[in-house]
């Protein structure tokens, strides 16, 4: 029903008012459209720039991984010869690996990626066991299992009865091809050793103590050096990550409460407390000792390096406690061979995923499992009563079980020239 008083009111056409309101509505619509178009265009341009930066960064990373394994300071590269796509590339030594830095810049936008570079293994040289030829055979006993190619003395492999254990493994002894080994281990890469020597001999200076419990240092900055000097120190309750080097002139004890990632430590002796877990490169001139159930995450490096002759009659030693796990590389190197050659000892139930290179002796206790490669001049086995040379007892060495993505340091003679990304360190 129509409301009578409302109908009685005077109704005006007011065309101009209505038109002004409609014009306002249209104006708001126009402003919305323009704003939407502006932001859409802005985002489209941003996406286009990001795509271009990512393309350039990808190209830069490919250039970092190409060619010979070398290090160089930051240099500008014009990617496509157009002058508009430049990238800054840098490669620097980080222990036995290389750190690559790629920076793609377009106008005010920059994309940065930092990566650690390592090499693929050379399948022709990679072996489960490389034992130098000292004119005596390799003896195996118990549940010893060798899978993968092996470089062994010409006198071959034989079964042995040791500690009341007969050989119960595969009748072929080695599940893989057996090649004749040389009298000497293949040499470590001298270029990588020289770079490592240069880095470890760099004037350290640096900070004498830790002022913060958590320290993270970017590889874009200069290496943060902690020089602990001759003061015997225990590292505990610290979280260190990245471009950090700890140098000590005496024994350094690393507690299980110490956490590290990708850092570099060098000292005459390094002792890891039982239960330590971390990732890094640890170098010593005299000894490295890890307690029980330590865990060295991939890609870790434990290295005995003597660039200067050592004190006579002091044997360099790496000892890994029982139940420990190492994902990476253990090696020893002496510039001048000493009388007492370095020894690497893996205690019971150690699991190694990677490689061991020992130009001296390699002591393997019962139930050691290796997914990777062992290279040594001499194997040792120690029972309660005696020491056996070139005997492998209850040892499992399976080079075939190593991950196909495993990358090795170019230091090892079995590494190929093909470089790959070992790990992504930083990006923005």
């Amino acid at each position, binding site marked *: 029903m129509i409301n009578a008083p409302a109908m009685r009111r*005077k109704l005006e056409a007011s065309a101009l008012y209505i038109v002004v309101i409609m014009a306002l509505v249209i104006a708001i619509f126009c402003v919305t459209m323009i704003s939407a178009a502006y932001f859409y265009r802005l985002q489209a341009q941003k996406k286009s720039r990001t795509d271009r930066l990512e393309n350039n960064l990808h190209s830069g990373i490919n250039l970092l991984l190409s060619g010979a394994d070398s290090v160089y300071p930051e240099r500008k590269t014009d990617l496509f010869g157009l002058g508009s796509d430049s990238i800054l590339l840098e490669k620097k030594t980080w222990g036995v690996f290389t750190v690559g830095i790629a920076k793609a810049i377009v106008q005010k936008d920059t994309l940065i990626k930092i990566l650690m570079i390592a090499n693929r293994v050379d399948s022709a040289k990679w072996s489960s066991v490389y034992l130098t030829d000292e004119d005596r055979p390799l003896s195996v006993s118990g549940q010893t299992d060798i899978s993968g190619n092996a470089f062994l003395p010409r006198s071959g492999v034989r079964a042995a009865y040791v500690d009341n254990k007969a050989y119960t493994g595969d009748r072929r002894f080695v599940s893989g091809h057996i090649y004749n080994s040389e009298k000497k281990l293949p040499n470590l890469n001298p270029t990588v050793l020289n770079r490592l020597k240069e880095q470890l001999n760099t004037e350290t200076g640096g900070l004498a103590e830790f002022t913060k419990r958590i320290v993270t240092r970017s590889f874009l900055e200069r290496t943060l050096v902690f020089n602990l000097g001759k003061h015997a120190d225990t590292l505990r309750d610290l979280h260190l990550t990245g471009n950090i080097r700890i140098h000590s002139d005496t024994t350094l004890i690393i507690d299980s409460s110490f956490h590290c990632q990708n850092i570099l430590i060098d000292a005459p002796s390094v002792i890891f407390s039982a239960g330590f877990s971390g990732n890094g490169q640890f170098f010593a001139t005299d000894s490295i000792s890890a307690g029980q159930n330590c865990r060295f995450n991939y890609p870790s490096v434990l290295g005995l390096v003597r660039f200067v002759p050592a004190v006579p009659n002091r044997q360099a030693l790496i000892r890994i406690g029982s139940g420990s796990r190492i994902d990476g590389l253990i090696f020893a190197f002496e510039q001048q061979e000493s009388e007492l050659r370095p020894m690497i000892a893996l205690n019971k139930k150690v699991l190694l995923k990677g490689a061991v290179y020992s130009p001296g002796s390699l002591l393997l206790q019962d139930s050691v499992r290796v997914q990777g490669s062992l290279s040594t001049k001499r194997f040792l086995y120690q029972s309660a009563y005696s020491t056996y040379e070139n005997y492998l007892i209850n040892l499992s060495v399976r080079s075939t079980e190593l991950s196909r993505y495993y990358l090795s340091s170019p230091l090892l003679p079995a590494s190929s020239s093909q470089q790959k990304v070992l790990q992504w360190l930083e990006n923005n």
Partner: protein
Amino acid sequence: MAGKQLNKKVKASSILETIVAMVIMVVAFSTAMVVLANVLKSSVSVTQIRASALLREQLEKVATSSERSNVSYISGDIEVRQIIATLDEHSGMIRVDLVALDRKGKNLAELHQIITDHAE
């Protein structure tokens, strides 16, 4: 009773008011049309997005195959041109230049990248 009320005279707008209103309407609508046309014209078209995707797909193919020839093919309305060049200063690397063109030869998208040469 209601019918009587409705039959009363209603005051209309003047001719001047109507003309001004019409002018404003025409100006407002034509401005809106121009703005709309410009917005649609300047935005990234679906064809350009499709062209970029096509180039990325082609780059993936080049990266994974050992075929190293310069090719040109048409996919729908888009022509893709591929040029591969070896890099003298970086052995084992190649430069891939990809360009997408529409039927009139207008450049829709470009993609350049240096990749590892798997054919080596």
